[in-house]
């Protein structure tokens, strides 16, 4: 039992006017990284999900292996308002280094659980404190020394579960998921959870309004991170070659490929792999290998983040110009340079769109959730092979590494599109072949795959100037012909990429344009604004180049806000290039501090600008 806190503090009561908060709160666990708290945080989050309560989790972690502050934010919301919440209505303070700051971030009426050996920060009278005798309970449980620190984090799971009403059975199921059914690991953690819950039951009295209660709002949802979803999407899209280099926050995408491929993609007769995954020596090599494999006819991909994208620029230009299908996932982090590797951003948009010297324009897909990471995971290969060129998929750290409550993945309903590939029989029939000839007028040429047994099949792919036969040429007219065809192809691309998602509100003058992980806070902000009587429409871009719906949306709204997570307003710049007549009307709402946006920041921004 806590010996340091005066009884008066324990008796402090929250604001008497506070309403009961059933299934509607934000919970922040402040701890140090490398202490195993992730297991505990996942247990709380999954347990809430298992209880049928909509939930989200954002891990704000340092670029470090062990010992620096980490905050894990869980939001439970019966109204499915799951964007990051800036305040810790329920704080679990486990890190003495940050405790004063953490306590200051608790709003009046909030709750603070804390390890009872903390001596400072316990003097607020407008919040409820609950001490947790972490050291004492761990001593009593007496776990093996090497597990002590990990088990200690289970103390807060038990205490918080007891006070908030999280079912212990749901915690057990959550641990089963986390430890993949390893009973021993589940039991050693669960016994600590139970002991802590029992202690809380015996010693703490509930004095706060926050409560979790079983609901039925998650049955048709799943909990998954975008990198796992992307890897699975790629697998169901038939990825046959992947090369990668370790980088935060993209590593877990390639690691998920390596985890799931052996189970899902064995040859039924021989048991051998119908894929190859190569860890390259750097990102240049990673994309280079993928380009080589894509040229050969494999479904080839790589995955990386900012610094890797920078290294890939030369190969991206080659793939664009030599017209090689390849899929590149960029799980964006905060830059420039090394930047903040464990923080999220949407700062690669402009660079990736024009990545490469000369006139280069890339197709970009913009998933807004793990479900879309799955869908674009397979669709990207179809688009790349159809258009014969690189397709970038820009996810970000928030989507990629955090668990999202999201719709289950839908099995691909369309057959694979392998694009315009000529076989030996085709060549017999046609009697001639020009690799870069625009036969169909859509800018997309026909290709042959190496190994095609026909004397007409071969060509020498090259990044140097070439004519329709792929032969080197420096003739000005041949160069222009080729570049104009590539331009036609980038126009053709519009019809093959996913359309924007438009949600028009009746009578709305305000239109919000955005993409990616901004979806959660933006849709929540629209609800908040609607409650104030401000109707807004939204358009979520899912690809570049833009389709017709984007211009229609801009013209249909008197006020357009482009909401994004970068410093330069990159999406707005792209829209201004595309819609020069409307350029001055495109207002920017942008923030780039490494954290996922909050609904209140967006709503306030709109209100502020509307007031002028």
């Amino acid at each position: 039992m806590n010996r340091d806190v005066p009884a008066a503090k324990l008796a402090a009561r929250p604001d008497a006017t506070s309403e009961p908060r059933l299934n509607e709160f934000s919970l922040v666990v402040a701890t140090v990284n490398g202490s195993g708290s992730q297991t505990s945080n996942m247990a709380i989050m999954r347990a809430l999900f298992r209880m049928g309560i909509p939930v989200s989790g954002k891990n704000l972690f340092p670029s470090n292996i062990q010992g620096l502050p980490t905050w894990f934010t869980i939001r439970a919301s019966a109204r499915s308002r799951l964007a990051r919440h800036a305040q810790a209505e329920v704080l679990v303070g486990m890190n003495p280094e940050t405790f004063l700051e953490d306590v200051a971030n608790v709003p009046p009426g909030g709750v603070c659980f804390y390890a009872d050996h903390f001596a400072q920060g316990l003097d607020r009278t407008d919040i409820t404190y609950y001490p947790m005798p972490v050291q004492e309970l761990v001593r009593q449980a007496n776990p093996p020394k090497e597990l002590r620190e990990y088990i200690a984090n289970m103390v807060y799971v038990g205490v918080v579960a007891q006070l908030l009403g999280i079912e212990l059975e749901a915690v057990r199921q959550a641990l089963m998921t986390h430890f993949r059914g390893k009973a021993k690991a589940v039991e050693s953690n669960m016994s600590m959870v139970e002991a802590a819950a029992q202690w809380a039951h015996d010693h703490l009295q509930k004095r706060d309004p926050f409560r979790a209660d079983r609901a039925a709002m998650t049955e048709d949802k799943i909990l998954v991170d975008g990198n796992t979803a992307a890897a699975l999407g790629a697998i169901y899209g038939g990825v046959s070659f992947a090369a990668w280099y370790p980088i935060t926050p993209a590593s877990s995408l390639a690691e998920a490929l390596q985890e799931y491929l052996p189970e899902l993609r064995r040859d039924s007769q021989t048991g051998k792999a119908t894929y190859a995954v190569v860890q390259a020596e750097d990102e240049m090599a990673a994309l280079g290998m993928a380009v080589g494999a894509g040229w050969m006819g494999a479904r080839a991909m790589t995955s990386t983040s900012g610094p890797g994208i920078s290294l890939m620029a030369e190969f991206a230009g080659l793939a664009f110009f030599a017209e090689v299908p390849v899929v590149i996932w960029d799980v964006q982090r905060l830059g420039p340079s090394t930047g903040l590797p464990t923080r999220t951003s949407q700062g690669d948009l402009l660079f990736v769109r024009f990545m490469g010297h000369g006139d280069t324009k890339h197709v970009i897909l913009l998933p807004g959730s793990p479900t879309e990471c799955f869908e674009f995971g397979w669709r990207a290969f179809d688009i790349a092979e159809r258009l014969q060129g690189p397709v970038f998929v820009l996810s970000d750290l928030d989507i990629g590494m955090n668990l999202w409550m999201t719709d289950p993945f839908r099995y691909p309903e369309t057959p694979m599109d392998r694009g315009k590939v000529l076989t030996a029989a085709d060549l017999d029939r046609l009697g001639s072949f020009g690799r870069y000839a625009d036969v169909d007028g859509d800018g997309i040429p026909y290709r042959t795959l190496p190994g095609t047994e026909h004397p007409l099949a071969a060509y020498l792919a090259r990044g140097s100037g070439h004519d329709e036969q792929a032969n080197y040429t420096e003739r000005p007219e041949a160069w222009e012909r080729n570049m104009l065809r590539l331009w036609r192809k980038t126009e053709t691309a519009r019809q093959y990429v996913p359309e924007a998602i438009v949600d028009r509100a009746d009578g709305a003058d305000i239109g919000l344009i955005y993409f990616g992980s901004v979806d959660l806070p933006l849709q929540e902000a629209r609800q908040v604004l609607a409650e104030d009587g401000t109707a807004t429409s939204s358009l979520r871009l899912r690809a570049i180049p833009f389709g017709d719906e984007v211009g229609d949306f801009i013209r249909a709204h008197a006020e357009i806000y482009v909401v994004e997570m970068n410093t330069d307003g990159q999406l707005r710049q792209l829209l201004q290039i595309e819609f020069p007549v409307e350029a001055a009307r495109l207002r920017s709402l942008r923030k780039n501090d490494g954290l996922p946006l909050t609904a209140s920041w967006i709503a306030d921004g709109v209100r502020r600008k509307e007031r002028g």
Partner: protein
Amino acid sequence: MTVVTEGASTRAATNRIGLEKGDYRGRPTTLCQGCGHNSISSQIIAAAYEVDLAPERVVKFSGIGCSSKSPAYFLNRSHGFNSLHGRMPAIATGALVANRSLLGIGVSGDGDTASIGLGQFIHFLRRNVPMVYIVENNGVYGLTKGQFSATADKGQVIKRQGENPFLPVDVCQIGLDMNCGFIARSFAGDPRQVKELLKAALSFRGTALLDIISPCVTFNNRDESTKSYNWGKEHEAPLHDVTLVPRREEIHVEYGEGEATLVELHDGTQLMLRKIGRDYDPTDRRAALHLLEESRAQQVLATGLLFVNPNQPSLQEMLGQVDRPLAALRAEDLRPDRASLERVVAEFV
């Protein structure tokens, strides 16, 4: 050897798969007259013809530079990829993993391999990607009009840059360090040896590294340069007389006990290394290291097969991939069934 003899017949001779030598040609070269690279291209054509390679089963690779232009000048009926400066290894790795049924021939230069591409080169060797990796080594950048590359001799002088103060990179030594299973050095002025080594390399399963000294007649052909014709001619010391004996031919070449070494390659062909003057065992890695040191100290261009070890798994074998080309897999091989997705998704709770 089959030769097209003038006037003897209106019909050109054909090899065992019915192709004429002309079927292995490329487009006309645009390299300088007398460039060693052109001689190497000719030997690639001759070797491919003589070992009856189906050109459609070959895939060519290169980076950027004079040497890297040359895949346009041989095997017109083979697909090829003239890629980025120093990045041939990456392109070739991905392509050959994606289609293990094809035979790779890569042509690079000393700038491409030992300067800008040294990292990729090393990792390519380390992974044992099955490909004939030819370094057309002249110690100088030609297309940019004469700058030192990383294989330039210390003390070498060229017009614009003066004297080179740095020791050269020895690509064969790097090959040994990376456990490359086939390391040969030759000289473009010795076309017969080049051709026989090429034929052997084409039968090797794994990376076969050929460092071919290929003089640049325009920028680095001064007599004192170890990459010049005259130096090569005067200092070449072949380790053995190399002959490739295809599997289809009975070994009727006579050799006395202890006079020749026979190395059997994966497809059953045999490489006969007939001794010339010295006792050299190319299966002994330490002997190869010693030889490189010795020839450097004595300023000798030791040519021939420096090292061979056919018993290392290739990258595709290490990856455990199916025998069929990954690139040829169809949708039913590539997309797991609907039920499997339901199983996977059921875990996301």
